[in-house]
């Protein structure tokens, strides 16, 4: 407990946390300047302050770990807040084929890579998840920055993100059950309980979400912020008790909120999420030894090359289904190539596995590469399309 520490230790903690925050502020600014997401830079910063890094920190790991976990919950909460039930239903109806294509084309390379590296099944499944999910944060930023929100291929891209969102509601509990590493029968039982709990909460969220939203909407901003924060942690904690994964609980809270309160809560939680999530990203790579990351760079680069190609294929397929021409298909594919926050969330589930640290290192390298190359590719999509057209 930080408050109980002797005052000199407290002083050290303050100075260290403050210094890291200042460094992150500079990194976020640099990233903003070049139109990039700051996540790769946060990961590099985490390496620098971790064990074996350039400036190892003394701050209590328990404290940072807790803040990082809250960061994950808030990331998932805002993901749930992103879409209204109507948008989810619409996405499900119009994005099904592309969603299945996306899952197969992008999960398999990651899973195969994990198996090829000789990892046990749970770690390979998690690497499949890391490779599967695009970063909705990076993608919405790229679409807005490049003025592509009005483009004809954009609904296909956004519907695919909705599909991945919904798929995560199933994938995360299954992956968490696998990570527990019990016998086959018991794992199946855990998965069944988890999925039943998810469908139960989801049904409740869609049915009673309006009433909950109406109750929350009555107060001012401060009670709303505290209520949403509290509700997220309580539901997350309960989900964790049921071994469903706290992240899914937080995600379902986000889904349950709709109407005006959805947008208000989104605006209020946004800055809080940025703060906690930054700690999460730093803490994630903080646990990776730089030497491990160097070892992982080869496999990560290979997987990134394959993963970018399969995402371009996915975007091509989704846009073609929407009747979009070749340049638009290339734009959709390159836009989808970036992985980010959710790949890191998935990899962090496996932190306790035997191959956990190697998984973390490959995931960090993979996200670093795709998060930088993806937006660059999206920017030059039209040149790429002309090149394809010439062949």
């Amino acid at each position: 407990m930080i408050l109980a520490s002797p005052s000199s230790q407290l002083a050290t903690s303050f100075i260290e946390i403050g210094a890291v925050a200042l460094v992150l502020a500079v990194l976020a600014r640099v990233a903003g300047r070049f139109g990039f997401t700051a996540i790769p830079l946060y990961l590099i910063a985490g390496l620098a302050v971790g064990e074996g890094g350039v400036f190892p920190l003394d701050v209590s790991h328990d404290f940072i770990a807790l803040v990082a976990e809250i960061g994950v919950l808030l990331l998932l909460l805002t993901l749930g807040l992103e879409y209204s039930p109507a948008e989810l239903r619409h996405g499900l109806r119009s994005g099904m084929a592309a969603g299945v294509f996306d899952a197969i084309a992008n999960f398999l390379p990651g899973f195969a890579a994990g198996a090829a590296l000789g990892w046990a099944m749970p770690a390979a499944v998690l690497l499949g998840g890391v490779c599967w999910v695009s970063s909705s944060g990076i993608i919405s930023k790229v679409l807005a920055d490049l003025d592509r929100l009005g483009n004809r291929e954009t609904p296909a891209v956004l519907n695919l993100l909705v599909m991945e969102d919904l798929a995560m509601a199933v994938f995360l509990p299954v992956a968490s059950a696998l990570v527990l590493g019990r016998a086959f029968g018991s794992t199946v039982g855990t998965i069944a309980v988890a999925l039943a709990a998810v469908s139960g909460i989801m049904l409740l969220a869609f049915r009673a979400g309006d009433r909950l939203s109406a109750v929350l909407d009555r107060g001012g901003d401060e009670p709303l912020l505290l209520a949403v924060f509290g509700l997220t942690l309580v539901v997350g904690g309960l989900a964790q008790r049921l071994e469903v994964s706290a992240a899914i609980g937080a995600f379902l809270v986000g889904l349950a909120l709709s109407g005006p309160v959805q947008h208000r809560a989104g605006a209020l939680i946004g800055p809080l999420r940025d703060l906690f999530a930054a700690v999460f990203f730093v803490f994630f790579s903080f646990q990776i030894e730089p030497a491990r990351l160097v070892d992982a760079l080869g496999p990560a680069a290979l997987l990134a090359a394959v993963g970018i190609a399969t995402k371009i294929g996915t975007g091509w397929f989704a846009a073609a289904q929407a009747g979009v021409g070749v340049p638009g298909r290339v734009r959709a594919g390159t836009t989808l190539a970036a992985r980010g926050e959710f790949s890191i969330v998935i990899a962090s589930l496996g932190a306790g596995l035997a191959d956990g640290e190697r998984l973390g290192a490959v995931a960090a390298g993979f996200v670093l590469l795709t998060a930088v190359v993806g937006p660059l590719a999206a920017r030059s999509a039209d040149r790429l399309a002309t090149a394809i057209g010439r062949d």
Partner: protein
Amino acid sequence: MTEIQETLLPGVGVRHEFTTSGGERLALLTHRTGRRELAIYDSDDPDMCRTVLHLSGEDTIALGELLGASQVSETVRRMQRLEGVAMDWITIASTSPSAGRTIADGDFRTRTGASIVAIIRDESTVPAPGPEAQLDAGDVVVAIGTPEGLERLQALLGT
């Protein structure tokens, strides 16, 4: 009537698009925040927005008013372009002999050839008034006729 197509953009808002009579494809993107984007599609790549205008809530109101106002005056101009037909707004003077009398009493149609198509009284409008409609001092009548007919009507009502 222009056919408007609506597309839901999950997490962003909604997009409406239509093709102008000139053949250009136009889209209006309404963000959930109320911000809007007005976009014109490229002629070579019909899936891509060539020009995008970013409008705040206030910009949208200003643009809407400009478009709305010019539409009204455009309609009036078009009516005036009908060969030999004119339209005029005439205020009934308190000195006018027609004040306090009905349209039938004035027998304006026969005397001037111009028709009274509406009476504007304070904030309300009486469209297509019948012969029994009464004209009061301060009312504004909207009339259609030949320019000469309207001048004669002006002489009867306005003085």
